[in-house]
């Protein structure tokens, strides 16, 4: 193939002198697996506006910076409390910035990130007709959808995990000695990892499944927020109206409540939603619900791209 280009070029009729001509490519072709990895990396960078204009970075980087700021404040409170001695321990106890409560504090930013960047990552290719170019290359439709979802989920994971890292490292060094700090903080690491992974999985895949179904950015953004808020509101209203436990079980269909229940179970604390508190389901019910939701959302995203005409 490429080797045959050289003699053909040499004998080509009427080539212009100033034109250095087209060179064949005889380098490596890394194929499908590489294309998938490259699309994943491209999606992850695009989620933070990297490789795009300055304006594309403002929202995602801003939304990622605010949770970090909260974490820094949390470390600051811990450090001040340490110096204030007896009184300080009361302050420390009542500080809202702790592992168990952190996901609640940053949930607004996480949801806004989903609503802003999900449509950005999947809507553009549909809107501008780019899909035929992807699907006529080394990757398959399944690969495209999975690489895009993975890029979004990892982008979200970064947003969630970075402030935890700041909080964790800060608290370790605020302690009397780093060794004391580590032994005090390490038990929190497994629940933090589980909580981050599941939150990123559920919300990232939800943002992608909604965005996959419309090229219109505004519809997707509204759709993502609606998909997160409406089930939660419906469950709360049903709970108020005392439909009994049957109505309460609908909580397992509400992504935000599932994550709330999961967080409560992982950190052994009280959930934010009264429905979740009253229902008092075991933690593994929420774990199962979160995993099923993620699989379902990813599956529906893939299905969409298998069917979309290109």
């Amino acid at each position: 193939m490429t080797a045959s280009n050289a003699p053909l070029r040499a004998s080509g009729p009427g080539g212009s002198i100033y034109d250095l001509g087209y060179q064949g490519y005889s380098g490596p072709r890394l194929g499908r697996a590489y294309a998938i990895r490259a699309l994943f990396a491209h999606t992850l960078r695009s989620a933070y506006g990297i490789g795009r204009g300055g304006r594309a970075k403002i929202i995602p980087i801003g939304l990622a910076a605010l949770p970090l700021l909260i974490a820094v404040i949390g470390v600051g409170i811990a450090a001040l409390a340490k110096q204030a001695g007896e009184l300080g321990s009361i302050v420390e106890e009542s500080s809202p910035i702790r592992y168990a409560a952190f996901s609640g504090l940053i949930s607004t930013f996480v949801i806004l990130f989903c609503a802003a960047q999900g449509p950005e990552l999947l809507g553009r290719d549909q809107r501008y007709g780019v899909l035929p170019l992807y699907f006529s290359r080394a990757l398959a439709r399944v690969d495209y959808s999975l690489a895009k979802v993975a890029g979004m989920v990892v982008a979200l994971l970064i947003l969630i995990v970075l402030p935890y890292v700041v909080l964790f490292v800060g608290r370790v060094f605020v302690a009397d000695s780093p060794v004391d700090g580590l032994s005090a903080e390490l038990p929190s690491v497994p629940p933090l990892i589980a909580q981050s992974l599941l939150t990123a999985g559920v919300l990232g895949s939800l943002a992608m499944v909604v965005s996959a179904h419309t090229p219109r950015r505004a519809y997707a953004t509204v759709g993502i927020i609606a998909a997160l808020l409406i089930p939660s509101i419906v469950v709360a209203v049903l709970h108020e109206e005392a439909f009994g436990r049957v109505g309460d079980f609908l909580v397992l269909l509400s992504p935000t409540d599932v994550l709330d229940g999961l967080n409560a179970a992982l950190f052994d604390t009280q959930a934010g939603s009264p429905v979740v508190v009253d229902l008092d389901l075991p933690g593994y019910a929420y774990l199962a619900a979160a995993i099923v939701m993620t699989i379902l959302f990813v599956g529906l995203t893939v299905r969409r791209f298998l069917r979309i005409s290109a």
Partner: protein
Amino acid sequence: MPLIALDGLTKRYSASVTALDGLTLELEPGIIGLVGANGAGKSTMLKLLLGLLEPTAGSVKVLDMDVKTHGPRIREFVGYMPEHDCLPPESSATDFVGHMAQMSGLPRTAARERTAEVLRHVGLYEERYRAIGGYSTGMKQRVKLAQALVHDPRLLLLDEPTNGLDPAGRDEMLDLIRRTGTEFGIAVILASHLLGEIERVCTYLVAIDNGRLLRAAALGTFTEHTGVLAVEVEEGRQQLAGALARGGFEVVEDGRLVLVALQGEATYDAVRDAVVDLGLPLVRIEQRRHSLEDLFRDDPSSPQAPAA
């Protein structure tokens, strides 16, 4: 090994809409024109070659691999320029084409080098760093061609590549395509409804109509001499036709012409003699050529097959 082998290829979009109907065809590398009216099935055929669509029946082999089982592998070596807009307006040509090169499996650095090279090849220079949204139609068509060429494909599929171009842009695009096919040894399939374009760049022609194969042959055979002699006289057309018919020739009158079925050299003599005998003012005698347009007349055989 043929470049492309279609066997009984059929695509139905619904029970009543059949885009392609039982196409069986083998194509060798070259610049291949795919002609047909709008809706004849050209775009459908290109999409089936790429695996963008699944055939309803039949099989497609490209580069000796089955599209159904080796889609991604085949598409590493195929470039596709779709008919419609496919460029994100806020990307620059450099970023976009480079990304597409990686999607074809080229490593990052190679993708960058190839992008610079192929954008220069299609004639985009400084403007390649600007957002595509601000490009003219001609520039956008060049970017579309560049993304199809960036991974140095062995087969290039072009769907109406001159759409929306002015005459100068059209000439440049066709020249680019011709050079890509002849000088760089890349096989090209060019789908177009404009016969003039096909005639200018292609060496082989596949004509489809209503999803059926009308004809596939080297371009020359479409325009070769027919077995028909056209005789033009200033007057006495009917007398001439009558005389020739009495002489045992198949004759029809067509406007100012008398068309005579050619039966060897003797036919020329008979026509000459008949004209002399009748004393008619002769304008010309010539052997008719096919024209590409004949393919798509309602009844392609009628205008040139007298008394058939």
